[in-house]
């Protein structure tokens, strides 16, 4: 009932259905007459299909249909790429829903079986006979770009060749002459060079992907339940691919069990499920297995980065020059071209004043799963390379890494700061964040402890990571300018019922983050109703207004702003109506905590509930005022928001085994005012652990034949509870000057910062042993080998 609800760590309203098992995920939907689809996926990474025989499968018990590439021609358009990178030679290879002649990764769909029951569909998939003529395979993005590399594709969708498997070459350059900066540094300063492998990662949302399609032949209407982060985008793309008009297409994202970027893209399997339902006139369900998720749901990262940093001998950065080969996988996924470019290259200068920089990014087709956004999406890869070379500079100059950061930080600013890549950061205090972190963690004392040397063969390491990220995507005009084939605004409809209860219909589509709670808190704080009186509707394209989805830490920042502004419209109308009822002038009215009253007379107030009742019955309205109490807003942000922070990782490395023990981790994050600090903290926890996973354990590996060696949860090392310390999470609050609530975003911050912090800590620990670099993940074997090699040299 008070404005204090903003900033209150109330329990999530989502939880009762989740802790009792009564939530409905896509997997849990069963419809009358439902059939089940299963995909046959290529067992080869690159091969020509010379024969497919589906007869045995078709004759198997319960099988209703088997479809191959020829069957969908004309019925399903190729998968669209929706980020058409400008200022590049973007070459989009055809991406069919079923591979007809050539398969290009282990996981490419070759056929789909529909059967009465799910086990029958899976059994029948095993009966399809396919003859493959293997073709040469390349999975490493740099090797794929070599002149003699196997070529994955013929012509692109415009009929042009795709030489060197190059999907695009994109460049960002800013500031002064970067080559001159390096010449100067070679002569009189310091140049740091490093090769960084940002390994392929598998997002691993705990809920595997799936779809339930229900096509009604009588009406021509289709409902698609889908594990998606952005149902409206799926509706749009599904319409393009399947031909079902957008007005007859309803996409529902029911309970969605995490995404981390892997549920942004539109997928062939989902649209094939639609095709099956249309073809058979029955509802069809397809749910991937976890192995299938590893084989075919988008992966993240996969950069080969060559980074050079130029600096003066006193540690002032003078230039940054990088070349990145970004593996795109076999096809360009929905948003893929924007990830290693716009979301990466434009953030290259991080928290620092860098006078000159240049980066060349080569997007390269490889025989792997398509690479898409994965938590942080481009920004972790930028933060890592910068934070790594800064630590190397510190090491080279024998300075403390904190000092080198301080010498290069952008000074504190409150209302805009244009950086070398032309982005205009909104607000930040990077030196302040680092200082507070160092003070809080007793950094100086930890350094003293480190000086004492290893204890029992265990080396202490400290790793810093200062970051700023771009989120709250974003101004739609900018979206258009950077080739994103959509807008990036958000919308909300707020409706007051006669009893003062509220329904909110919002385009954003949270999938575990908890914004049903956060959004209700926004409404409550803006207009003084109880948060419990506000119901949030999201995830259904038939009942909610257009929204561009939940990714890029944008849902609270953009959707929340749309919601706040809609409620403010209601407040404005309510004030006029209250003035009318109190026979006062609007100018004489005051508002506080859900009450409208004549200035100085708060005892004779009209509550928002009084106003809601009158507006709904409309017995006594001011002249010209419409009945009802409802408002909608389309909020198109004037700029992005730029959360920031500084993290410290503390590790112990056992030199005899190479085992890394993460013994402490402290995160300082500034996402502006926190609407629900408990939810913010939870986002930070989860984000950090995903980033730690990249540093220490996770990595998708293909063998020389393009077989996914890490094809199951047995083989892909995910973070587990016993591997982690208690995380210490603190914060500062810097408002975004342009945001209606001042808030930024927090969904990806932990992941963006933590990989570099942990990696830097391990390298700091290994410094006395002479180890300079180890490729991630920093498994005991790799660390141990690096120690042995350093001993040998």
């Amino acid at each position: 009932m008070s404005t204090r609800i903003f900033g209150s760590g109330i329990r999530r309203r989502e939880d009762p259905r989740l802790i009792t098992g009564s939530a409905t995920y896509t997997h849990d939907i069963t419809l009358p007459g439902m059939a089940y689809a299963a995909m046959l996926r290529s067992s080869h990474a690159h091969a020509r299909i010379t024969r497919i025989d589906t007869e045995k499968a078709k004759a198997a018990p319960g099988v209703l249909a088997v479809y191959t590439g020829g069957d969908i021609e004309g019925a399903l358009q190729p998968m669209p790429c929706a980020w058409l990178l400008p200022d590049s030679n973007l070459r989009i290879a055809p991406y069919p829903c079923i591979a007809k002649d050539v398969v290009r990764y282990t996981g490419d769909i070759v056929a789909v079986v529909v059967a009465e029951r799910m086990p029958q569909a899976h059994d029948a998939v095993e009966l399809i006979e396919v003859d493959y003529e293997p073709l040469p395979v390349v999975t490493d993005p740099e090797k794929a770009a070599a002149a003699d590399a196997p070529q994955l594709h013929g012509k692109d969708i415009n009929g042009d060749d795709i030489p060197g498997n190059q999907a695009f070459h994109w460049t960002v350059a800013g500031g002064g002459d970067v080559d001159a900066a390096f010449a100067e540094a070679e002569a009189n300063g310091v140049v740091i060079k490093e090769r960084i492998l940002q390994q392929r990662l598998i997002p691993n949302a705990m809920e595997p992907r799936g779809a339930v399609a229900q096509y009604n032949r009588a009406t021509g209407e289709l409902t698609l339940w889908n594990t998606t982060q952005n149902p409206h985008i799926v509706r749009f793309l599904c319409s393009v691919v399947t031909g079902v008009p957008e007005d007859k297409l309803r996409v529902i994202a029911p309970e969605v069990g995490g995404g981390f970027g892997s549920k942004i893209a539109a997928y062939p399997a989902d649209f094939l499920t639609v095709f099956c339902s249309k073809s058979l006139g029955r509802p069809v369900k397809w749910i991937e297995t976890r192995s299938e998720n590893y084989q075919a749901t988008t992966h993240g990262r996969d950069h080969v980065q060559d980074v050079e940093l130029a600096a003066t001998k006193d540690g002032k950065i003078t230039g940054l020059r990088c070349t990145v080969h970004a593996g795109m996988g076999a096809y360009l996924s929905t948003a893929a071209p924007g990830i290693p470019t716009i979301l990466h290259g434009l953030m290259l200068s991080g928290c620092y004043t860098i006078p000159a920089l240049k980066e060349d990014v080569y997007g390269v087709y490889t025989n792997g799963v398509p690479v898409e956004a994965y938590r942080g999406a481009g920004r972790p890869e930028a933060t890592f390379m910068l934070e790594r070379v800064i630590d190397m500079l510190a090491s080279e100059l024998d300075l403390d890494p904190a000092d080198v950061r301080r010498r290069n930080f952008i000074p504190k600013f409150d209302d805009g700061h244009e950086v070398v890549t032309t982005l205009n950061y909104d607000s930040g205090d990077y030196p302040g964040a680092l200082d507070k972190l160092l003070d809080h963690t007793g950094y100086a004392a930890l350094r003293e402890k480190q000086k004492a040397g290893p204890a029992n063969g265990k080396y202490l390491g400290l790793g810093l990571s200062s970051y700023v990220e771009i989120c709250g995507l974003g101004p739609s005009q900018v979206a258009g300018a950077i080739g994103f084939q959509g807008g990036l605004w958000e919308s909300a409809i707020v409706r007051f019922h006669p009893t003062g209860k509220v329904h909110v219909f919002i385009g954003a589509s949270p999938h575990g983050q908890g914004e049903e709670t956060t959004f209700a808190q926004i409404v409550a704080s803006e207009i003084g109703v109880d948060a419990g009186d506000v119901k949030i509707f999201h995830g259904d394209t038939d009942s909610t207004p257009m929204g561009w989805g939940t990714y890029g830490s944008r849902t609270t920042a953009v959707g929340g702003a749309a919601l706040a502004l809609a409620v403010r419209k209601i407040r404005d109308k309510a004030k006029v109506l209250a003035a009318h009822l109190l026979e006062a002038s609007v100018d004489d009215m005051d508002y506080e905590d859900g009450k409208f009253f004549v200035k100085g007379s708060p005892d004779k107030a009209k509550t928002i509930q009084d106003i809601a009742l009158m507006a709904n019955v409309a017995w006594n309205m001011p002249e010209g005022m419409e009945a009802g109490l409802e408002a909608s807003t389309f909020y198109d942000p004037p700029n992005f928001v730029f959360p920031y922070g500084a993290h410290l990782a503390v590790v112990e490395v056992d030199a005899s085994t190479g085992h890394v023990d993460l013994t402490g981790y402290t995160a300082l994050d500034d996402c502006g005012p926190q609407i629900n600090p408990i939810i913010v903290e939870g986002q930070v926890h989860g984000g950090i652990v995903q980033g730690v996973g990249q540093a220490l354990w996770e990595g998708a590996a293909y063998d020389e034949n393009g077989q996914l060696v890490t094809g199951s949860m047995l083989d892909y090392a995910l973070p587990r509870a016993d591997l982690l310390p208690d995380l210490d999470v603190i914060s500062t609050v810097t408002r975004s000057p342009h945001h209606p609530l001042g808030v930024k975003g927090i969904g990806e911050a932990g992941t963006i910062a933590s990989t570099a912090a942990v990696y830097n800590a391990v390298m700091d620990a290994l410094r006395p042993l002479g180890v300079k670099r180890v490729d991630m993940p920093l498994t005991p074997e790799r660390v141990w080998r690096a120690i042995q090699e350093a001993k040998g040299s």
Partner: protein
Amino acid sequence: MKVPVRITVNGRLIEREVEPRLLLVHFLRVFVELTGTKVGCDTSQCGSCTVLIDGVSAKSCTTLAVQADGASVTTVEGLADGEKLHPLQESFWNKHGLQCGFCTPGMILASHELLRTNPSPSDEEIRHGLEGNICRCTGYQNIVRAVKDAAGAAAGADQ
């Protein structure tokens, strides 16, 4: 070939004829229509499918339905006492021990087992006790807090 099974699920006797290869998790989700138990992987690693069989936790994706013949199975739907949540459900809610909720049913039942065998665990014991269950959202910290909280509540109730 089908074989008869009699399994008591959340106090209700269910009798069905099933294929011998049918996994308990599919028995629960498809035959009993209790979808709270989740399938998160196919290698018995994630623990989303954890249930209690005769009070002891088991991964229902690696248990055949026929193995549970004659047993009593508790799923997440059977934990609450009517409207009253189980203390673990309360503590997961209170401590923000879940985000997307997909691992939660299994996590809560694995925690149930942990507290059954060790009523007042240390943080470290909780972390080891839950290493067979994967959560991708929370980073586990609030799950540890939740289990600790539930243990404390149980200890309080005993006094």
